[in-house]
């Protein structure tokens, strides 16, 4: 037989709680205990509310460009819930829910979008990397982070989040190839939300699934309903186990949808059909979780009211902390440039309010003045 099949595969799609609230009891058994399911839903309420508030802050000039997370809460949240506290979360920029679950203070994310680097000054103990603005670059860092843990024979793994668009970048493919061929315990968590700004995901990947991109590198891969937090938790747990025990990476494609514009600088009506958005609204991860909780008598109107009140309080407090932080000093952008500031940079800093940058030392005026241009 001159031609024979040398390889065949199937890609699984995992779903536990479907869009109608139907729960697969067998697959879903023990995935999320009731108490946690309630806590996760409450967390989603807070994140959704934050999106609304952040949008308004941007529109009223109190914050710069902001990317809404609306509709994608179950993905990063399910993953963060499934992982250990010491596993690295390596985000893109649409992972608020997972990062806050881990413990990143909400005001850090607000500060980031308010144009303040202190939003990235993250407590190392949280094992959360700062947001990655250049698309598709952070998966390599996740691979290195996980590699370091493996090198030290620690149990820590890394999970990196990125969009469908990011899987077009070369760096993504290099990360997948490194991880698979060098046995690195990293999870590649793709949030396929249908769009990369105005470009539909079929321009990024013409194969039937994005998941199979992992297959090409020889790693396990799976597609999951990204709006089903139970399924997300399950596949992430499986991937984490494989990473921890066998040092093997997994590629997870979470199928979800960006209900909002790409960012506040975008107008999605220019390029996508409102009907498509409407159809995805029915698949909202929060609707089905709420339905599930109500059916199990874990949720009712009174609880909802109380949770909303708490969400509002949490968000208001975070906005207050973000807005009340003292304006940065104009020398701040020098001070963290190197462990030790080179002499010329010191001169530039100390004469920055003059023009000649240290050419004339008599111009030393001290530069600890507050930013004059602070925008809020």
């Amino acid at each position, binding site marked *: 037989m001159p031609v024979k099949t040398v390889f065949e595969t199937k890609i699984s799609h995992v779903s536990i709680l479907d869009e109608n609230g139907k729960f697969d009891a067998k697959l879903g058994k023990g995935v999320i205990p009731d108490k946690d399911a309630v806590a996760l839903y409450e967390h989603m309420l807070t994140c959704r509310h934050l999106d609304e508030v952040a949008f308004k802050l941007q529109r009223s000039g109190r914050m*710069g*460009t902001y990317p809404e997370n609306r509709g994608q809460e179950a993905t990063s949240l399910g993953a963060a819930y499934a992982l250990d506290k010491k596993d690295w979360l390596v985000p893109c920029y649409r992972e608020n829910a997972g990062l806050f679950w881990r413990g990143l203070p909400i005001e850090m994310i607000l500060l*980031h*979008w*308010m*144009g*303040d*680097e202190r939003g990235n000054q993250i407590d190392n103990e949280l094992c959360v990397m700062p947001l990655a*603005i*250049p*698309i*598709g670059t952070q998966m390599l860092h996740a691979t290195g982070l996980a590699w370091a843990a493996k090198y030290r024979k620690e149990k820590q793994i890394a999970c990196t989040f990125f969009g469908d*668009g*990011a899987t*077009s*970048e*070369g*760096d993504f493919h290099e990360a997948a190839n490194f991880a698979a061929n060098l046995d690195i315990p990293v999870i590649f968590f793709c949030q396929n939300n249908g769009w*990369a*700004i*105005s*470009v539909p995901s079929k*321009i*990024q990947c013409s194969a039937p699934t994005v998941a199979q991109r992992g297959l090409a590198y020889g790693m396990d891969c799976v597609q999951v309903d990204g709006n089903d937090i139970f399924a997300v938790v399950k596949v992430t747990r499986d991937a984490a186990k494989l990473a921890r025990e066998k040092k093997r990476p997994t590629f997870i494609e979470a199928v979800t949808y960006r209900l909002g514009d790409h960012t506040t*600088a*975008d107008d999605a009506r*220019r*390029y996508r059909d409102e009907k498509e958005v409407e159809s995805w609204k029915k698949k909202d991860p929060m609707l089905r979780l709420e339905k599930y909780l109500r059916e199990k008598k874990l949720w009712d109107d009174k609880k909802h009211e109380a949770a909303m009140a708490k969400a509002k309080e949490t968000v208001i407090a975070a906005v207050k902390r973000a807005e009340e932080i003292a*304006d*940065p000093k*104009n020398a*701040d*952008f*020098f001070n963290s*440039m190197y462990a030790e500031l080179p002499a*010329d*940079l010191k001169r*530039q*800093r100390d004469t*920055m309010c*003059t*023009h*000649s*940058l240290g*050419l*004339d030392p008599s111009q030393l005026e001290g530069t600890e003045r507050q*930013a*004059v*241009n*602070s*925008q809020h």
Partner: protein
Amino acid sequence: MANLTLVQAINLALIQEMEADDRVMLLGEDVGPNGGVFRVTDGLHARFGGDRVVDTPLAESGIIGTAIGLAMNGLRPIPEIQFEGFLGPAYDQLTTHAARMRTRTRGAFTVPMVVRVPIGGGIHAPELHSDSPEAIYAHHPGLKVVMPASPYDAKGLLISAIRDPDPVMYFEPKRIYRAFREEVPEDEYTIPIGEARVVSEGDELTIVTWGAPVVQCMKAIENSEKSIELIDLRTIYPVDIDTIEESVKKTGRCVIVHEAPKTCGFGAEIATSIMERCFLHLEAPVQRVTGFDTVMPYYKLELEYLPETERISRAIEEVVAY
């Protein structure tokens, strides 16, 4: 004649060149139905169709690498990189292939393409949306680098760039995309690559700048009682050093203004050329008013970093008083 913004002037030039030459095509992220994130290619997808205005996968190396191939096989591609901060992945293709192709094949192969890239700060944008890397590309022999500072120049320079037989980096200062309007002729015209523009004449001091800071410099000149000559380079490489020389020989004093960091900024090159050509005419050391040698800060501090009018005015005072 129409009163256009810089964005509209570029859009018009693209339309006219695409109508005149069916080898001209656009590729990039969101340039299609969305018309680009700054709307520079607005309406072009509807007008010219998806074969000539192409939304590509999200990959800058892919965009430039394929544009090189498109150009080498007879087309005139105009790839867009969405922001200068995302040139990183494209840098390899630009410098190891586009810049070198003509000379390493001794002219057998050429790469006539125009890489459109919004550049610079001052628009309150997130990280990596506000940098000024023009000097990096000027440092790579084989690339031409232009940056218009007015709607009129934007149209004429873009048409020249499209018709140019070599790869051109066409940087668009996003801070002035819509900052003001100007009369732009409907007919096609060209602004030669490599020719600076004397924006205003004077005989006491020369300011050399390019891109968005032209506006800040004009304000500083308005606020000054001195007679100041303002030169907008328009082309970074090949630089029009003759125009600078002529001016500095007349004024004897020069301030160079750019957004990019000071060290190895293009101002350093100009200052050296002035020293070489005008040494005996100089009344004061050439001063640079530039970004600092730091990472471009997030937007709360961006105006502290950028060469705003106040800093330019101080430089004028000091150089005149020297």
